[in-house]
Every structure is written in C-alpha cells, then in structure tokens.
C-alpha cells in the first residue's frame, strides 16, 4: 500500500525482473501473516467453539469440557431458557446500563465543558479531584457503599446498581480531553449571543462532542453489562438481577445444572453483547483509544 511512494526512493533497481518477484514475495509474506493470524485466532476462539458445540449437544452423549459427538439438539436452550427469567434479565440489564450511561454523560458533559473551556479559581484543584477519583477502584469503595445502601434500604434494587456509578471521573476526564481539542471559535459564537450555561451545554457542547460521547457511552455500556463485582455486592435475590449476575449464579463454581445446559445459558448471556459489539465495535475501539489519546 505504500509502494507508490517508497518505490522511487529505492535507487533504480539493477535487475529487470525484480519488481515482479518482489510483488510475489510480498504476496507470499501477506499470506503467511494471515495464516499466522488465523492459527492464533483459532486457539483464542476455542472457548467460543466449545461453548457453542456443547450448547447444541444432547446432554446424554456430552463429555464434560470436550468436543464430544452427541447428536444436535435445542433441548439445552429450552431448559436454560426455562431455568431463568430471561426477558426480565435482558430488560433489567438494558435498563441499568442505559441509565448509567445516560446519567454519566448528563453529569459529566457540563463538568467536562467547564474544566476544558472556562477559566475559574480552583480549576486545577477541580481537575486533580477528577483525576484522583478516576484512580480509585470501585472495589475499594464497595463496602462503605454496601453499608450505606443497606442503611437506606436500597440493597437489591436497580438504584443500588445505577447510582454509585453516575459520577464518573473517567467520563469527565475523556470528555474534557476531547473538548480541549475543539476550536475555541465554536464556543465564542454562542458566548457572543449570551447563551446561558444550560443551553450552551445542550445546544453547543453536546452536538460538538458527539463522537466522544458515543465512544464513552459504548465503553460504559459494555463495561457495566459485563460487571459481575458490583451486582455481587448489592444484589441479594433475583429481583433486580442482571444477565451477568444471573449467569454467575446459574453456571457458577458450585452450579448443579448439567454441563450442556450451562453452556446454553452462557450463549444466551453473551448474545446481546456480541450483537452490540459487532454493531458498535468502531465506537468501542474509539472509546478505548480516547483514554490514551491525551
């Protein structure tokens, strides 16, 4: 792909047939690269293959943990579907991750705008506060939150899953980094019009920060959909169970469900995320890279 520019730089090739043989060797090299990648991919995707194979294999012929040759069946999915209230799990997971993402953006965007675009006393201190919060793992603050939530009677509820996450140091940080890179003229026009702070954020900052918001929201949704730790802290029953929490209960270390049924449940658990991933992988990747693009 860079041959047009680099070819003239290599001092006139002395041998005539060289370009042809070089393009063939390049083709061979590319083929080798793809073959190597395919081999590594085959190894890394084994867990997916085993999960799918077992999920579709009749429990009678299934050998635990191997690609056994039982006949194909949908019985595992039927059993796994009946064992858990899937529609409710899906809905609850969707509600929780969307609520977290929306509230995180709603709170982070105004703060990020102020930190990026306004000079005020204590700005540096405010920014360092964000950085400090961003570096505190949720695991460390879990027990005080657990105690506080139990005191106000919010354990085992959706708000216990959502509220602790809505103040996002990470969200403020990456939205700020993005807003810093936008030309000042975008904001100046609105300031001359004496736009109030709320409509400034809503009408000027929001549309301009859309790529960063989408990337951050995708990142947040995947992160919280996958999270097992926090639901394990605040949930006691299946009342507000997320998909991840339910699968860990159903197919966890002390599960008594048959092997093939556990694998069917695992498939059901990751399907929504696979769909989100395939649709939004570009945004997810951008979200990951925003973190490093300082």
């Amino acid at each position, binding site marked *: 792909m860079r041959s047009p520019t680099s070819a003239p730089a290599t001092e006139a090739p002395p041998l005539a047939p060289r370009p042809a043989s070089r393009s063939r060797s390049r083709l061979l090299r590319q083929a080798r690269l793809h073959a190597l990648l395919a081999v590594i991919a085959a190894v890394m995707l084994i867990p997916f293959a085993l999960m799918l194979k077992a999920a579709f294999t009749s429990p009678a012929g299934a050998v635990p*943990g191997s690609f056994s040759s039982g006949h194909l069946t949908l019985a595992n999915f039927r059993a796994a579907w009946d064992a858990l209230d899937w529609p409710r799990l899906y809905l609850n997971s969707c509600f929780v991750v969307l609520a977290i993402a929306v509230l995180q953006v709603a709170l982070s965007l105004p703060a990020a705008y102020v930190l990026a675009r306004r000079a005020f006393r204590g700005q540096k201190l405010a920014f360092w506060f964000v950085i400090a919060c961003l570096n505190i793992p949720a695991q460390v603050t879990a027990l005080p939150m657990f105690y506080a939530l139990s005191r106000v009677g919010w354990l085992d509820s959706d708000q216990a899953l959502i509220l602790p996450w809505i103040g996002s140091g990470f969200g403020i940080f990456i939205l700020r980094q993005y807003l810093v890179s936008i030309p000042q003229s975008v904001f100046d026009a609105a300031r001359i019009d004496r736009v109030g702070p709320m409509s400034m954020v809503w009408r000027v900052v929001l549309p301009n920060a859309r790529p960063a918001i989408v990337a951050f929201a995708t990142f947040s949704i995947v992160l919280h959909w996958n999270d097992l730790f926090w639901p394990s802290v605040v949930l006691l029953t299946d009342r507000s169970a997320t998909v991840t929490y339910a699968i860990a209960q159903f197919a966890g270390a002390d599960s008594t469900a048959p092997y093939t049924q556990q694998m069917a449940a695992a498939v059901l*658990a990751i399907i929504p995320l696979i769909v989100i991933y395939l649709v939004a992988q570009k945004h997810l990747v951008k979200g990951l890279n925003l973190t490093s693009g300082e």
Partner: protein
Amino acid sequence: MNALATRPVPAGLLRRLPGKGGWRGKEPVLLLAPAFACLALFVAIPIIAVAILSFCQYDAYTQQLTWAGLANWASMITSGDLRHALVNTIIYTVVTVPTEVIIGLGLALLINAVARGGTFWRVVFFAPAACTLAAMGTVWRWLFYPDTGLIDSTVGHVIGVTNWLNSTTWALPAVAVVGSWFGIGQMMIMFLAGLASVPEPALDAARVDNAGAWNRFWAVTWPALGPATVFATVVATGDALRVFDQVRVMTDGGPLNDTATLSFLQWQEGVSYLNIGAGSVVSVVLFVLVLTTAAVQLLVSRRLSRAGSA
C-alpha cells in the same frame, strides 16, 4: 469582569446585574456541582469511610456498628488470609500483565503488517474482551475439567499438569490464563492506536538502508510505542489488581483459598460473611497496593522517558 466576580460582593447583587455578568461567576459551580457532588458522595467519602470501617465491628443481627480499635487488623493479619490474598493478587498481576502486553503487542504488529483485512482481525481478536468474563469464565471452568476437559486431554498430558482448578499450585495460573485471554484484546487495541503514530518516513528511511524487520522494529517502531506501552501496562495492572469475575465463577476462591485475591477476599468477608470491618481491612490493603503500584509505575515511566530523550 473577573475582578468583579472574585470580589466579595453579595450574591444577590451579582444576580441582579444585567447581561451575562449575572451568571458568569456562578457558572462553573453550577455546571460542576452535580457531577462533583456524585463523585464526593460515591467515591471520595467512601474512600475515607472504608478506612474508618476497618476499625469498626458490624453486628449483622442488631445491625449496629461499634468501634473495635485494631481488632480487625490484628485478626486479619494473624489469620494469614490477608497475606495469602495479597500474595495471590501480586502473583496474578505479575503473570498476567507481561503476558497480555507482549501478546497484545505481537498481535498489533501482525495486524498492522497486513495490507488488507486488518479490521477483520481486530474484530476477531477483540471478541474475547467484549464478551462477559463471568459467562466465559464458566466455559473455561469446563475447559479445565479434570481428565475429559480439553486442557487436561491435550496440553495437560504433554506438560504433565492436570486437574488445574483443584490443585493448590495450578488453580491460580489457570485463573491467570483466563484473565490474560480476556485482557489481550484491549492491549492489542491500545498498541494498534500507538502504531498509528509510528513515523512512516523513518520506517521508509530504514527500509532504504536495508534494515531488516527486526532492526526496524527496535530502532523505529519500539521507541515510538513508548507511551502506548506505558499506558497499556498501567491499564493491565489496574485490571489485574482488581481481579474478581473469573475467580468467582471458576473456583470461588478455592481450593483452600489459593485463588482468593484481595478483591475476592474483601467481598467474601464483607458481603458474604457480613464481616464489614474485616472486609474493609482488605479494601484498605488493596487501595494501598493500587496506589503504590501506580506511584512506582509513574516513577519508572518518567525515568524511562528521560533516558529515552537523553
């Protein structure tokens, strides 16, 4: 305008001023307040509270919290569980971080070298990282199933290690294998972003000088990847120190607490056994470990970047 805003004028007077001067002084506060209130309530105050809780005793029946002094610390330190979990967490981190970073870098270099189909491979190799680790952890538990599981029946017989998850020696490495499998994709993405910043002219110049792929990597690519490597290492370390998901679904901390990491132990003590004081001791130790590691990484990366520019 600024001088006016910072002078101690009554707030009512400012509000009555015409035009934008009325809200300018309060604007930052107004826009920062909701987010900062949540950060204070859900992050800053709990981090102080956890230190206090580590000196308290919680009675699950009366739901009373009483001052216990150093009792939790004394019992956690003498029981050995805390030290065990600390060692497990450090071993897990030391094993997974280099594995993820090196394989992630290798994959990124391979994908960066293909002329077509790079996006396809990126999607394929990031797939494990996008999937629910709790669900895939259960699949891995079956892969490690004694005798008939795919790992025992293939590599297990070759290297002579079987029944990983029930072995006090090999359960933690098994958990680390799964953690690495999950983390590689994220590292790869970060290195691909880093590779985009490698100076193309320098690579071309090296090619003209007939520098082999190996030399081109060490002379041009690797130095340009410095920031990406530092960042990937920091992220991988942060994730490793907090490991919980696959421990919960693969081993539940066993056998004999040999896969109980700090995250898992604090959850087990504080949430499962409702021993909030003892759990908080573990939280504080985890926090100190995270801070120390971050400080060391900051110092090392500063020194490296200084050495690189000298």
